[in-house]
């Protein structure tokens, strides 16, 4: 689907001039921003966390924390908004500027029905909305317009009865309720699965085009940005690096930062080299696991079989709830399978307990999704990495400190960080520490459970490169669990696609990505953002 539209020249809805935002702590989060957004344009703002994109949106809707110093000018439809009081803001928020928040899970009031939350918008802005008698029918109309099925029935439902995708549609409906001139969407789909993301984006963009709404779409994903936007703004450390149309950004950009982002999003086609067959590291045979019993039983993993040859990467892809993480836990011996067999380096996993489970964990280690929670915040980096060495009583203290230094060098951590504690490190550095700890006791199999998804794109890139070089040098075997098809395509030798606990397709990465056999795999690949990017960037795709 072509979601981009041609530029519509018109008077700017938003005119930002020389905007500088300084937080009370002294951080300059936005530095001399100049930006005009013409009416009806969809503008995507791309950048890592800390690049100032959230500050920009907060300044636009007047939600900067108290004590923040704002210099420069922000004009919204001719009104200067940098010094408005709360009452004047209230008239603009919702009616003039709508907001689609990031996390659909926590953005709806759990104790109110969908209907009352939709109608609340009309109640707050009576002069902008339809007469009271039509509120309900208008709400139903809105829900239908964002593609919510059975809208009348949904009005009486509570947020917990809706899926994440439906909740985000409701939030979009609320944002469009009063036909605002400008809509700010702050990472509206980053909490959703790819297939759901695709449909939600389609609904959102077609509604905005139809109503001629100006959209400021904040995202960290360049692939999503180029799919939907007319124009892309690349931000880094509080400055606008580039401000171009999608086509010119992809084909003409010379900014190194943008090129790096583009390279990441398109994925270089350097596949990992196939390795000589050296035996099977992980062997999963018809494994099943059901949670609960009776009517509430949930088949988390059903009859899953695959093999991972030593020294290669096998990726499991699928939506959340498809059983990927349960499979990882089964392999790590953290859960027992109800039927079937798992062998890691030839040893059975299911029956392992106590000492034998420790034997398994010396050969296979898990790297977690969230490096914040995976490292004890009170321990120093050196002692975190040394922990397995200490627990298995390997070597003497001198050998251990040498081994820690060696591991830190392997994962490219500066030796000066040995005495630091996790809260002082960035997300990428923390994930490096987690990898070093996993390798410390000599494990050659790593199970990476969404290990990159909590990181910024460029950090992901660095960790990915690290994983690949470790695999080359030490012959590591990876079981890589991810929902991000770009990453999977780059790192894997083999791919397995999971859906509702079943492995619907598996094969070499080339085979699965170019000739998908199962219809679900095709849906998943079609939903993968970055189509525009691939079209315009044939060299990479």
């Amino acid at each position, binding site marked *: 689907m072509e979601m981009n539209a041609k530029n519509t020249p018109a008077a700017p809805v938003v005119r930002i001039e020389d905007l500088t935002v300084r937080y009370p702590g002294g951080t300059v989060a936005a530095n001399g921003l100049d930006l005009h957004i013409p009416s009806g344009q969809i503008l995507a703002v791309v950048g890592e966390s800390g690049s100032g994109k959230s500050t920009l949106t907060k300044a636009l809707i007047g939600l900067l924390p108290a004590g923040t110093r704002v210099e420069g000018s922000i004009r919204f439809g001719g009104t200067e908004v940098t010094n408005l009081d709360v009452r004047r803001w209230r008239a603009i928020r919702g009616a003039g500027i709508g907001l689609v928040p990031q996390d659909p899970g926590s953005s709806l009031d759990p104790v109110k029905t969908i209907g009352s939350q939709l109608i609340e918008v009309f109640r707050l802005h009576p002069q902008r909305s339809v007469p009271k008698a039509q509120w309900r029918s208008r709400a139903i109309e809105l829900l239908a317009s964002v593609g919510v099925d059975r809208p009348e029935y949904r009005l009486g439902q509570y947020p917990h009865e809706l899926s994440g995708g439906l909740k985000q549609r409701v939030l979009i409906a609320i944002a469009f309720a009063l036909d605002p001139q400008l809509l700010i969407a702050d990472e509206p789909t980053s909490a959703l699965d790819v297939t759901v993301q695709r449909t939600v984006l389609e609904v959102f963009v077609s509604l905005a085009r139809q109503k001629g709404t100006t959209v400021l779409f904040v995202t960290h994903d360049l692939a999503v940005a180029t799919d939907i936007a007319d124009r892309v703004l690349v931000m880094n450390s509080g400055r606008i690096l580039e401000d171009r149309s999608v086509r010119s950004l992809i084909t003409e950009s010379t900014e190194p930062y943008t090129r790096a982002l583009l390279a990441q999003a398109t994925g270089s086609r350097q596949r990992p080299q196939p390795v000589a067959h050296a035996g099977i590291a992980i062997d999963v045979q018809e494994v099943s696991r059901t949670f609960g019993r009776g009517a509430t039983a949930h088949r988390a993993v059903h009859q899953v079989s695959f093999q991972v040859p030593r020294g290669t990467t096998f990726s499991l892809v699928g939506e959340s709830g498809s059983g990927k993480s349960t499979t990882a836990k089964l392999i790590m011996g953290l859960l027992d399978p109800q039927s079937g067999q798992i062998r890691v380096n030839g040893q059975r996993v299911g029956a392992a307990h106590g000492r034998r489970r420790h034997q398994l964990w010396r050969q296979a280690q898990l790297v*977690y999704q969230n490096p914040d929670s*995976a490292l004890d915040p009170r321990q120093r980096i050196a002692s975190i990495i040394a922990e397995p060495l200490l627990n298995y009583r390997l070597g003497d203290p001198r050998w251990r400190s040498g081994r820690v230094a060696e591991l830190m060098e392997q994962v490219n951590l500066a030796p000066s960080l040995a005495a630091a504690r996790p809260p002082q490190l960035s*997300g990428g550095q923390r994930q490096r520490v987690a990898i070093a700890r996993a390798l410390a006791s000599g494990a050659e199999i790593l199970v990476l459970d969404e290990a990159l998804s909590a990181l910024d794109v460029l950090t992901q890139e660095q960790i990915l490169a690290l994983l690949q070089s470790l695999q080359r040098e030490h012959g590591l075997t990876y079981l890589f669990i991810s929902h991000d098809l770009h990453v999977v395509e780059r790192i894997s030798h083999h791919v397995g696609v999971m859906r509702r606990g079943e492995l619907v397709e598996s094969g070499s990465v080339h085979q699965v990505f170019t000739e998908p056999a199962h219809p679900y795999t095709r849906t998943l690949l079609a939903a993968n953002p970055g189509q525009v990017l691939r079209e315009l960037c044939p060299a990479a795709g």
Partner: protein
Amino acid sequence: MSVLTEQNTTPAGLPLPEPAPTTAAPAAGRPVRRWLGRWWMLLPLGLLLAWALVPGAFSAADPITGIPAQKLSAPSPAHPFGTDHLGRDVYSRVVHGTRQTLMTAGLACLIGSVLGSVLGLLAGTAGRAADAVAMRLVDVLLAVPAFLIALILVTATEPGPLSLGLGVGIASIAAFARLVRTEVLRVRSHDFVQAALMSGGGYFTVLRRHILPHVIGPVLALLAVDLGAAILAISGLGFLGFGAPPPTPEWGLLISEGRQYLSVAWWLTTLPGLVIVTAVMLTAALGRSINCAFRF
């Protein structure tokens, strides 16, 4: 939780600027002032401790035998807290009574915190059955008023500091057990506990290295607050006559004796009472400071 928020947005790979050392002293006078700002209550609490350890150093007057000629004299430079109906110096009796009260309260806190923490750790880590048993035990303790438990234990056994401390201590087991259990469950939900187990750590290793350091802050804070509560409970029991026998100076007993002369000698109840209130408030402030120091 502030621990989990990203505090540093420097891209990985680039060397981070060295974190500013927070303990280093830019000027000689400042760390002392900052330390005092947080821990000022340690000074008066230290004075109380000194009263308990060497009461003779703080009051020369005899706390047991008084001078009948000076009975019921109002506070004066010679007798800062006045004298009681037997002419004994009240200040001296307060100072000498500190040991009895603090020792009993300390014993109570020790029993409450140790037994409670063990129970809470068991409940939080040793599986579902242990959790159920420990928590139902705690429910039973919570169902009976704490003061009543202490009263029953003291009347059933020979009155004395030991039975008093035991009685008050048992009553505070429940609070410790609950606190430790919730803290353990909170810490356990972090991936690093599972990661520690997978790094080859045994049950006790993980408990010691990863769970206890996160739990200890709130427990110490509750300990300080509980000390105040125990002082109050012990003084209350002393007031009711379940504490030390009469000639022995003890804070609750002092107030109890002074009650009969409330109309003629206000200082007999008011001044020891103020000492108790101050001691309890100081321990509460200490608890708050400990809690702040362990949160980061």
